[in-house]
């Protein structure tokens, strides 16, 4: 029961639509965002852009830059093909120096576009560990899944005494990456990967997969998927007699999972962020986020706020020196400054353009989640 034909725009349609209508005025600086705005993963795009819009508003209110900062949003649909088309538009038609990216598969596909055009691409949502190795112009402001798996596995194996893992993973670069991590991390911690269940990205029927998952008698079901599909997997697994604990990575940090009744009690990892911190940047973000969106802030919102703020800090420094705001100079400046004051405290970049942060384990409770470790 797999629907191969996707509810996507035809490839050419997406290609053309994305290239149309691009104009920038002289008193604006435009940067780009290549995020999922439609399709089954549009909810991530919504969550990401909340952080982006907040940052743009703050930067313009503080007059951090000499011109007004404007964001050009393009729709990647969380798929590589439309993602590349959108990135090409941002790079060669709009000519942005800096663009935001999300999702492992999209990020891997657009990294060569960024590298070739010397445009900085910053990821705050995708967590495939190979995103750390995509060249000088691809940066990550989110800790990658290897850290997530290394936090979750020892906790479940040692503290919860759950040793047998069954992995349900989506057939794309993210799923492959999580599979690789679990294969190496589980034996080290004394656990065992007893089932590897691969599913297509557009699968919607999981009764058979649930039966196969039950068959291997796992203690934990680890889900590596995203968006609407995650909710379907959880619901259908619970419907079909899978009662084991469900664990996942930061892909669970979206409202749809929080509100899914069957997801209650599921555990997922995320970067650690102290929302109560007295650090002024974090405090401002939390206050404004609550005021603007009427809910508690989330990690994705913070990451994309940080990604835009990072641009403003670098561009401000370049303007002060009288240098042009180009991808090349932004990279040079990031290397020169090294550490940044952003939401969640100090962010220090590794030489490969990624960050390391402490991790935490959250439990889905229908009220935005709470920290269990």
């Amino acid at each position, binding site marked *: *029961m*797999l*629907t*191969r*034909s*996707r*509810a996507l725009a035809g490839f050419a349609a997406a290609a053309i639509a994305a290239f149309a209508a691009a104009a920038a005025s002289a008193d604006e600086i435009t940067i780009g965002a290549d995020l999922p705005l*439609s*399709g*089954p993963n*549009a909810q991530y795009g919504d969550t990401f852009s909340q952080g982006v819009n907040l940052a743009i508003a703050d930067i313009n209110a503080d007059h951090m830059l000499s011109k007004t900062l404007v964001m050009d949003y393009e729709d990647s649909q969380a798929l590589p093909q439309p993602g590349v088309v959108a990135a090409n538009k941002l790079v060669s038609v709009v000519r942005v120096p800096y663009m935001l990216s999300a999702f492992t598969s999209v990020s891997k596909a657009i990294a060569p576009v960024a590298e070739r055009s010397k445009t900085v691409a910053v990821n705050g949502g995708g967590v495939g560990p190979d995103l750390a190795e995509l060249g000088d112009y691809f940066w990550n402001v989110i800790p990658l899944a290897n850290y997530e798996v290394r936090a979750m596995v020892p906790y479940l194996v040692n503290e919860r005494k759950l040793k047998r893992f069954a992995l349900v993973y989506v*057939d794309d670069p993210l799923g492959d990456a999580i599979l690789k991590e679990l294969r190496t991390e589980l034996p080290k911690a004394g656990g065992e990967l007893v089932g590897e*269940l*691969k*599913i*297509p990205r*557009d*699968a*919607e*029927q*999981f*009764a*058979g*997969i649930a*039966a*196969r998952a*039950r*068959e291997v008698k796992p203690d934990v079901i680890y889900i590596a998927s995203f*968006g*609407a*599909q995650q*909710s*379907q997997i959880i*619901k*259908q697994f*619970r*419907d*079909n*007699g899978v009662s084991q604990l469900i664990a996942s990575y930061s892909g669970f940090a979206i409202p749809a999972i929080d509100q899914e009744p069957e997801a209650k009690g599921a555990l997922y990892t995320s970067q650690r962020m102290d929302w109560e911190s007295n650090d002024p940047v974090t405090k401002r973000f939390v206050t404004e986020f609550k005021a603007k969106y009427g809910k508690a802030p989330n990690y994705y919102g913070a990451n994309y706020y940080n990604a835009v703020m990072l641009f403003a800090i670098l561009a401000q420094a370049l303007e002060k020196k009288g240098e042009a705001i180009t991808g090349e100079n932004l990279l040079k400046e990031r290397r020169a400054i090294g550490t940044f004051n952003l939401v969640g405290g100090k962010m220090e970049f590794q030489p490969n353009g990624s960050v390391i942060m402490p991790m935490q384990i959250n439990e889905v409770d229908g009220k935005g989640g709470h920290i269990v470790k």
Partner: protein
Amino acid sequence: MLFLQLLVNGIQVGALYALTAVGFSLIFGSTRIFHVAHGATFTLAGYVFYELYSVAGEPWIAALAAATAGAGIFGVLVDRLVYAPIQRHEGSFFTVFVASFGISIVVQNLVGTAFGRGFVSISSPLSRSVELAPGLYAPPTAAISVLAAVVCFVGLHFFLTRTHIGMALRALSENPDLVRVFGLDPRRLSSYAFALGSLLVVPGALLTGATAGLSPALGNHVMLISLAATIVGGVGSLRGAACGGLLLGLAENLALWHLDPQWSEAVTFVVLFLFIIFRPAGFFGRVVTQ
């Protein structure tokens, strides 16, 4: 035990495929119209029920009635407004096929724009499995699916063998000229075929919505399965389409025993491809090739 579980899952899915495929086959057999938009009828019925029951909170029986009426009316309208004018002046197989394809593209995108392109689920306690034997689970929807299929097939059988319209429909599929000679209007009969064939998607649409969720692109899959079941079973044979549907549902689920799920649809179509090359008449059908 895994095999038994997959068998149970396969029967549930297969029963619904059989119903949908019989609807397609009934239309194709009696009107020779390659009604690709049958999948669109399926999607529409599912979303009408979802909108009324899950979103607006109407009682399920009212939503069911609306979905049934919606499916029937849509089928008849497509026949009257699109197929009839085409057949009046020309009516080659491909012209009708292309128009039908156009309709399914329009419906898929309308539904996607109205309801979003993700999944929606009809939440119902009936999709929650009970443990029948250690390790063997089945939801009440499985029993409902099989029951719905049996009831519909018995009803259809009586209709086609005992009523005038039913007998005329069968005659139409065997010899349209004969029908005309007996003074029956093939166009009116065609509307009956569309109404009846479209109604048969309703149980499948609702139960799929409750177990696996609905998405706008679902219609494509339904269309592919109906087409494959009709050919594997033999064009013109309702019994063949029912067996074909059940077989495809079983094959899709049993394939999970050894294969990853991404191959199950491909397996279905390899079987179909081989049938077309080596036995185009299917199980029960007449040879209608060159």
